[in-house]
């Protein structure tokens, strides 16, 4: 078996470009999916049943179907249904955002519900407005509780960016697979791809563990 690693060293900038897009995609998705998740969580807690029902159906659907299929679906259906024409990157971003918003909304809902109602009553009995109760009593307690789950969701998102390679977005997986096809150095390229993901993903996984531990201790 002869390994020829020159294909990696020669194409280093391309691989870095792919990795950069991976990171960009993940960051943009989470930036949109955090408010998106909050919005969905809020919709699920409104008193109007049809709104609640729709939001719940939305969340359940995006959580129970494969992301790769959602990517394809958004890619083909979005232009037909809404007249919006996005770039491939935009489409991938849209699909991932919808998906992660659904997961985030569950996280936010669970976090808010875990605060004892007595805490709200205590704030109200001091004469606080509902808004003050949210700001001073509920949110400061809810945020540390949702942080570990959000961190885990981020790590999943980071890995799911690989799935948008199927609609030719030039993140790391797409770049890697193209390189493999062109260079025929299958083992070297695929291993390098895996290693690059590992370099990015391993510290993130450790960071998530640390967050989980820190929050537990602080409780």
């Amino acid at each position, binding site marked *: *078996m002869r390994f020829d690693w020159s294909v990696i060293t020669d194409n280093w900038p391309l691989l870095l470009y792919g990795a950069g897009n991976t990171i960009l995609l993940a960051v943009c998705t989470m930036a949109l999916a955090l408010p998106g998740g909050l919005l969905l969580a809020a919709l699920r807690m409104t008193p109007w049943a049809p709104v609640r029902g729709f939001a719940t159906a939305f969340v*359940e*659907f995006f959580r*129970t*179907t*494969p*992301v*790769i*299929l*959602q990517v*394809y*679906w958004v890619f*083909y*259906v979005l232009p*037909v*249904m809404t*007249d919006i024409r996005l770039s491939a990157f935009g489409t991938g971003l849209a699909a991932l955002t919808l998906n992660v918003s659904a997961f985030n909304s569950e996280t936010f809902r669970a976090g808010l519900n875990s605060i004892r109602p007595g805490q709200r009553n205590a704030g109200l009995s001091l004469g606080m407005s509902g808004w003050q109760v949210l700001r001073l009593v509920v949110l400061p307690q809810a945020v540390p509780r949702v942080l570990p789950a959000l961190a885990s969701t981020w*790590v999943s998102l980071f*890995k*799911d*960016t*690989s*799935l948008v*390679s*199927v609609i030719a977005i030039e993140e790391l*997986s797409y770049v*890697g*697979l193209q390189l*493999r096809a062109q260079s025929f150095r*299958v*083992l070297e390229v*695929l*291993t390098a*791809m*895996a290693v690059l*993901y*590992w370099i*990015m*993903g*391993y510290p*993130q*996984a*450790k960071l998530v563990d640390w967050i989980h531990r820190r929050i537990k201790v602080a409780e």
Partner: protein
Amino acid sequence: MGWDMSVDLSPLLNNWRFLLGGVETTLLLSLLSIALGTVVGVGVGIARCYAARPVAAILAFYVDSMRAIPLLVILVWTFFALPLLTPYSMTPFAAGVLGIGLHLAAFVSEVVRAGLLSIRPGQMQAALAMGMSRAQAIRLILLPQALIRMIPAFGSLVVITIKDSAIASVIAVPELMRQSQIIVGKTYRPLEVFSFVLIVYFLLCWPVARGIDRIYRRLAPLGAT
């Protein structure tokens, strides 16, 4: 340019047998991956709790690496790169089971570890005080309780595996996702086909999730201390 109202269900009606074959493959792939992942995962989880330091460290590395690398990359590597290192060739399906299974095993091992660690140390002490060996205590006292506590987390891993099986389409495993892509390629009706397949996945996963919920609610008191 507007909403193309013509919904044409004929690609679904004409090819339902083909798609059904895809569903069967999806289920088989999921089942075998879950089996492999569970067996390996339970072993790794127990080993990480009770085995010697060097072994535990190697296993920790394996688990954390599986958490860091996307499943798509693992599947592609397993199918294209692994056969280059061994004298064996591999069918896409086999690569799918191996890749998804070993990836799942890492997460199963985390669940097992968490379950074992969640049991009060007093339980182990009580077992040892009765004269049991460590192995007996683990087998008779700790593991049964831990297994019950793990049911919800394990259940969600089952659902995730069914969803992840769709990624195997990338290495041409003839599961549902792949078959639907073929149909779309032939009939140019992605809206109908993909929407339908979304619903099928939903119908596959949702009852599993609810069923696991029910089972856990019945058994939960047995695992609580």
